[in-house]
């Protein structure tokens, strides 16, 4: 049983972001981390490997060359090998193009489960898992609070309106998990040393049998304007007053906005 976890390198929440002249995020300029929600997918895969339900755990990323750093960090947490798809033609890739490239790489790696975080910190569309499943012609099990494997099927525990369901599909599948799978482990010093000896292979688009034309210029979408958010009026503060006074002033504030 083989699991491939997709890992995206994203700007750290606290990082200062800059934009290129054509309105794309300058990914080289910001301090980068593994997308925090991908760490939960890594953790889920490693737990399955520890329970012997999975033999091999590999990591796959698409991004500029420095994204290899995110893969090394993943390998320091555990797992066996990693693959980076990097190509100048991929700058500014949108959800569809990203899914198309990841699908081609996953076809080559042929895992039983392609496992993903439920969203990326920077884009938050949550569309890549479903689009990858569509392109590969595989079932999708999404938003799992837990992933279980066995008897040729994968199962996820998924929240419903009031409780939860176990949803299953025959392997191979594309799956995504939430932050309920368990807190991601920290890389140990031993893990960091071991990661340096693990295989990290780099693929170009040509290695995947793709080219810029088959990706429609890497995007079906185009950003026509990027700007800072509208400045909000400063926060009004109520402090150093008793609870009666505070309550009365909050009620006044709500009434002034016709909220009560």
């Amino acid at each position, binding site marked *: 049983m083989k699991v491939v976890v997709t890992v995206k390198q994203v700007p750290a929440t606290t990082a200062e972001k800059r934009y290129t002249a054509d309105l794309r995020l300058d990914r080289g300029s910001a301090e980068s981390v593994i997308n925090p929600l991908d760490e939960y997918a890594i953790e889920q895969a490693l737990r399955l490997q520890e329970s012997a339900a999975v033999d091999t755990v590999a990591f796959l990323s698409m991004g500029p060359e420095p994204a290899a750093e995110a893969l090394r960090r993943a390998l320091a947490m555990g797992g066996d090998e990693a693959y980076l798809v990097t190509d100048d033609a991929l700058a500014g890739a949108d959800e*569809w193009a990203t899914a198309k490239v990841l699908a081609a790489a996953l076809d080559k790696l042929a895992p039983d489960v392609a496992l993903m975080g439920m969203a990326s910190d*920077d884009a938050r569309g949550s569309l890549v898992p479903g689009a990858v*499943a*569509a392109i590969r012609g595989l079932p999708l099990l999404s938003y799992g*609070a837990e992933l279980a494997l066995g008897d040729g099927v994968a199962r996820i525990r998924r929240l419903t309106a*009031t409780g939860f369901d176990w949803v299953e599909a025959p392997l191979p599948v594309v799956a995504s998990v939430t932050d309920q799978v368990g807190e991601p482990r920290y890389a140990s010093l031993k893990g960091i040393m071991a990661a340096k000896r693990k295989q990290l292979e780099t693929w170009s688009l040509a290695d995947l049998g793709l080219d810029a034309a088959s990706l429609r210029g890497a995007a079906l979408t185009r950003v*026509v304007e990027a700007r800072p*958010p509208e400045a909000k009026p400063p926060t009004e503060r109520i402090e150093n007053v008793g609870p009666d006074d505070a309550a009365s002033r909050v009620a006044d504030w709500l009434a002034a906005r016709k909220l009560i």
Partner: protein
Amino acid sequence: MSNDVAFLAEFADGQPARSALELAAGAAELATAGGGQAVALCYGPGAGAGAAQLGAAGASRAIVLGDEEAPAITVAAPAAAAVKQLEPVALLAPASPNGRDLAAALVGLLELPAFGPVRAVAIKDGRLQAEQATLQGTVITTSEPADGAPQPAVVLVLANTFTPQEGGSGTAEVSDAPAVDGGAFGKARIAESHPAEEAVANLEEATVIVAGGRGVGSEAGFAPLEELATALGGAVGASRAAADAGWVPYQLQIGQTGKVVKPSLYMGIGISGAIQHRVGMQTAENVVAINKDPDAPIGEFADLFVVGDLFAIVPKLTEEIKRRKGR
């Protein structure tokens, strides 16, 4: 190619979800401007029986993708067949897990451009324009489909972006989606179902949310928040810390990995306002925070920030609101 605007309409027990009514209104508004129709793509238990009533909400037509108790993703293949036949200019999908799954499947199956969740959406000269907040809300972008991109543009829409039409009448013309094989997406099935005994509020539908965090301290600590929410005609939500602690069910969690909400009033009580929570509520129209820590991050983006003891203030506020409403 048409100027129609399609939308995903989820049903439960034969009734459209609130998101379906909101998207019907949004699709009608966008379609009318371009001389097209709003077309509902209906799925979920009872969708077949309930589809026609979307006419009163703004839909001219309703196509039934499936109406069984099954994972929403299982209707992806009929959805793709219906969309291919319609070729609408845009397809609106609720930014819920089910809505995103179906939107993603369509993006992959039909090679479609995707946008959102959007803050605003318009159709200009037959081309969709989507405004969205990205990079944790630090940048606002306007995007459109690239030249030659296939139709429709797939658009994720947060709850409360559009207001359902009121007092509408009429029925939508109902038809079935083209009969196609369910494909790989059709293979997912519910193996076990564990509904909770008590109903849980649907936060995405609430226009007022009173959310509690770590500062609320316990399950019992949520009781005064419940009373305040009731007085305001709203629902109770929570931060991840409160859900992780087991004080409330995960269905009430607001944030990056919980619900993304857009109420007209959000009250954050005993919530510090970490970025992961903020991305789940930052589009609320009015944000009030109560926290004993004068330096809590929520104080930097709330509209009104009350520094004080929530256990003393919240019951007083509930009383005061009841008193004023009773007047």
